[in-house]
């Protein structure tokens, strides 16, 4: 025997009690009871706090109640008045900082040329000193190579690969001697640095074995040294100027970026955030469909919850049963009204729901145009 009977089901569907509803008083009683239960739940928390106070302080219920009320008021007053002020102050300070830093950078840019010149001279004199020091070192290391190996370190330096490398470097340094003569102050450190990198620093065994690689590296290095010689003093001055200018502008940009980021944070904080209760927007859509967009909008207006809504269509999960919760509801501001725009996700967006949401938004806009002009 089948457990489902379509004839009986059909008869049930057409039974005369099909559209019967409880009377209005019953409905009102149930809904009021539920609303009251929600309110009582909120009250319960206050009661718990006052009970705790009573237990801790050993004072009477009335005093505890009054005390908790005073504390609540104090907290509200502090949060209400202080935080926004501070944030606004922060915005003001930040904008002042941007202006100051901009003028600072203009003032700083003036002595750039002078400081660049100065730094070039310092660099040149340093280079001469270091060149002398390093050429002494090179001579020493070369002597070490010529001397028969008595230590492990000198043995590694005296390997055929190193000898060849040094020979290449010497050749290239001889080649570059003409240029070095022309610009001794600039060229010296480059050549010396190159020589030092080959002669002084310990060469790993694996690299030392590969003669071709080392030779190639030294030739490449010599070429780069040649390129470096082509840099004139004037160019260096320009480079230094550009560098100091770039560093200043980079600093300025960093500062502005930092300030604007901080400003954006503060402004973001000033934009009312979307409440992140789970499924809140799904309930809201169901509520709009149930009550109608105009009624819900008026309720929100009365509650001071001014906003506009957009619907985002979501896909039902693989089971086809659940609609996922919309993640990261986008908060934006409406240019016309200044109200925030909240994105509400739904898997089942009917035409009637769209219409009701539009009615909701229109009611909000109407209220804005009627009351805030």
């Amino acid at each position, binding site marked *: 025997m089948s457990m489902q009977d379509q004839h009986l089901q059909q008869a049930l569907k057409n039974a005369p009690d099909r559209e019967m509803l*409880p009377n209005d008083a019953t409905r009102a009683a149930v809904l009021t009871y*539920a609303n009251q239960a*929600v309110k009582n739940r909120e009250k319960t928390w206050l009661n718990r706090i006052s009970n705790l106070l009573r237990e801790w302080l050993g004072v009477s219920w009335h005093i505890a109640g009054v005390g908790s009320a005073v504390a609540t008021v104090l907290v509200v007053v502090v949060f209400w008045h202080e935080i926004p002020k501070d944030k606004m102050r922060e915005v003001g300070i930040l904008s002042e900082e941007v202006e100051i830093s901009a003028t600072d950078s203009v003032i700083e840019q003036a002595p750039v040329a002078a400081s660049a010149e100065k730094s070039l001279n310092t660099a040149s004199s340093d280079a001469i000193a270091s060149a002398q020091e390093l050429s002494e070192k090179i001579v020493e290391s070369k002597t070490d190579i010529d001397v028969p190996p008595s230590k492990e370190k000198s043995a590694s330096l005296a390997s055929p690969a190193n000898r060849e490398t040094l020979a290449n470097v010497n050749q290239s340094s001889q080649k570059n001697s003409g240029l070095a003569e022309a610009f001794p102050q600039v060229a010296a450190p480059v050549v010396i640095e190159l020589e030092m990198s080959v002669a002084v620093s310990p060469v790993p065994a694996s690299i030392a074995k590969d003669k071709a690689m080392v030779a190639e590296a030294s030739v490449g290095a010599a070429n780069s040294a040649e390129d470096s010689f082509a840099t004139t003093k004037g160019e260096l001055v320009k480079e230094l100027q550009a560098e100091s200018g770039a560093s200043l502008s980079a600093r300025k940009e960093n500062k502005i970026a930092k300030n604007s980021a901080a400003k954006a944070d503060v402004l973001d904080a000033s934009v009312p955030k979307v409440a992140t209760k789970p499924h809140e927007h799904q*309930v809201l859509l*169901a509520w709009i469909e*149930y009550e109608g967009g105009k009624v819900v909008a008026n309720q929100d207006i009365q509650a001071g919850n001014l906003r506009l809504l957009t619907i985002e269509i979501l896909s039902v999960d693989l089971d086809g049963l659940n609609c996922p919760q919309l993640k990261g509801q986008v908060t934006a501001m409406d240019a016309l009204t200044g109200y925030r725009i909240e994105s509400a996700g739904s898997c089942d967006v009917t035409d009637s729901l769209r219409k009701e949401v539009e009615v909701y938004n229109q009611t909000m806009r109407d209220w804005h145009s009627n009351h805030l002009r």
Partner: protein
Amino acid sequence: MSDILISDDILMRQFCVGDSKAFHILYARHEKPLYRYLRRVLGTGLVAQVDEVFQDAWMRLVDARESWQPRDGVAFKTWLYTLAHHRAVDVLRKSGREFSVDEGWLDDENETLWQLWPASIADQPEQQAFWRKAGQQLLHCLDGLPAPQRAAFLLHHEDGLSLNEMTQVLSAEFETVKSRLRYALSKLRLCMGAHLQPIFETDNTV
């Protein structure tokens, strides 16, 4: 309203955290079916008490919301109907009306007759009046059933609960629920078959 928009379980969870709107939506969804169920289970004799039982069921739900755990595999609807059914059984018992499981009888002849009843008739718009009358007769037949069988039939045919869900609502074993449903169907077919005999004859002549 579509269930996909937001499920009962999510609405109930929202209500549990203090969203009274969620409760309003839940109530709107289940108001009519639950009221109908209670009215039919209590029967014409206790029709005056339907509103009271209905209201009491919802209030019990509100009071017990903290104990509701969707993870136990109990859907909201099953839970709601369980609360309502238990309240209805209390009223039936107090009223002195029967609430015993009548194992009844099975009539093979009527069963066969019932199977011959043309199902296609449901699709014909001109038969609406007939089905309305049939519905009325069915309510009368339901009144004659023992309450447990009546409840089993209504939960399965009207509210779409599965046999497993019915075991929770009726607080009974699977086999018990199944047998109650079988007896209810047999009796109702017999009751309705006698009433619809003229229709069979008309249909056969056509």
